[in-house]
């Protein structure tokens, strides 16, 4: 992902910021301009809890080139207590234990290296709570 574009994603990726609709209360991640439920504009920025519950999961065996070294790796959709849902990888886990309903923490991690120079790109990954 080219650097200027990556830079715009920092609030969502580094600070795990989402948005809340001031009218209907819908929580989205990342923030967007218009509420997908009621079309209200001007969502409020909120910080999401760094934990959640797995909604559904998979283990990626055939990966994109950037993630070859990590494969096989679990990926999940996590729902935070605020009701935001996000897609993340799961780190520090046995892939077989990652199943719907599992409680996870969201930790700040390196996600990928960009381009030939290998610029480090960060975000969040889920880690099982034991």
């Amino acid at each position, binding site marked *: *992902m080219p650097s200027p574009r990556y830079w715009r*994603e920092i609030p*969502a990726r580094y600070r795990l910021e989402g948005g809340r609709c001031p009218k209907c209360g819908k929580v*989205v*991640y*990342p923030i967007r301009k218009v509420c*997908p439920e009621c079309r209200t504009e001007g969502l409020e920025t909120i910080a999401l809890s760094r934990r959640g519950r797995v*909604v*559904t*999961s*998979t*283990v*990626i*065996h*055939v*990966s*994109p*080139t*950037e*993630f070859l070294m*990590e494969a*096989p*790796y679990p*990926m*999940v*959709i996590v729902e935070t207590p605020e009701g935001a*849902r*996000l*897609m*993340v*990888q799961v780190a520090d886990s046995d*892939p077989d234990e990652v*199943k*719907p309903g599992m409680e996870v923490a969201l930790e700040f991690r390196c*996600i*990928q290296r960009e381009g030939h120079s290998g610029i480090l*790109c960060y*975000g969040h990954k889920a880690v099982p709570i034991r």
Partner: protein
Amino acid sequence: MREVAIVGVGMTPFGELWELSLRDLFVDAALAALRDAKADHLDAIYVGNMSGGQFVGQEHVGPLMADHLGMRGVPSTRVESACASGGAALRAAFFEVASGASDLVLASGVEKMNDGADVTRVLATAADQESEVYHGVTFPGLYALIARAHMAAHGTTLEDLAAVSVKNHAHGALNPKAQFRQKVTAEQVMASSMVADPLRLLHCSPVSDGAAAVLLCPLSRAKEFTQRPIRIRGTGMASSSMALADRKDPAYLDAVNLAANRAYEMAKLGPKDINVAEVHDCFAIAELCALEALCFTERGRAGEATRAGETSLGGRLPINTSGGLKSKGHPVGATGVAQAIEIVEQLRGEAGERQVKDAAVGLAQNMGGSGASSVVHIFERV
């Protein structure tokens, strides 16, 4: 709006067609459709194409195709909705004829996937780049997330998923245009290499080259071109959230249901009136979800229905008699138009060994991304 008929069809075989380029594929399919209707001119062309830009570095596909078809001067537009591009092109052509703006319109789709591109990466551009692909998800990965959600909610099993592949390969073995013309067993499916758990290689549609084209005209003029016109009774399209995480129920394809309801309403028909259907089985789980969203089975019962043979040739409602995307192949931009061709051949009674007896009404359901777009068409023998 005017009634619209399909009066000509043409398609290339699907597969790894190394000797044919993007433009060659289109021209072969388009010429076949024109010949089928004995038509010598066109008022407009729509070309469904997901990603000529990324697969072969070619954008501006509309005029390129008109030029190579010998139709310079004819308006020609590329239509894109990821893997639903073909269905979206058919819908655009339908409205151009229905509106009265044009009489003879070619709806086509083409994709050249085997020309050295990183296919997994190109296909992933149909998912949300910022919130999904950045984190390392692939297309099989997205459908695997759907599969596990479906298994958790409805008790769908690995055997149910395998049954979809077994059935579609058995159908595809009868289709001379199919990429894979061999049967597979459930054991082979469940022993094939893991792609994204629980989806294995034989749950996934292949990487394919191919093109398909259909010729549309007002129903009132159809007999000038063919003795067996097929009327388009309904068209429906819908969108859903781009990111799978934003679906209320990741195991339910709500855009497919919305598109289907719109098509049923326009056709004044319901799921019980359909005799044969092509659904978008890019992955085995997608066929099960589509059957439920199209209301062909109750929610959560599609796996059971498939294993019971209800959707096989000879069953209650044969699904994907062409072999589906799984066995026939999935050149993404061409798929939606090729689905329509299978239904036209069934309704004309020209499907050979795959013929569904007395088929009078058929449906085709095409889908983009992880279900963020879907197009449904309903066809009827005239």
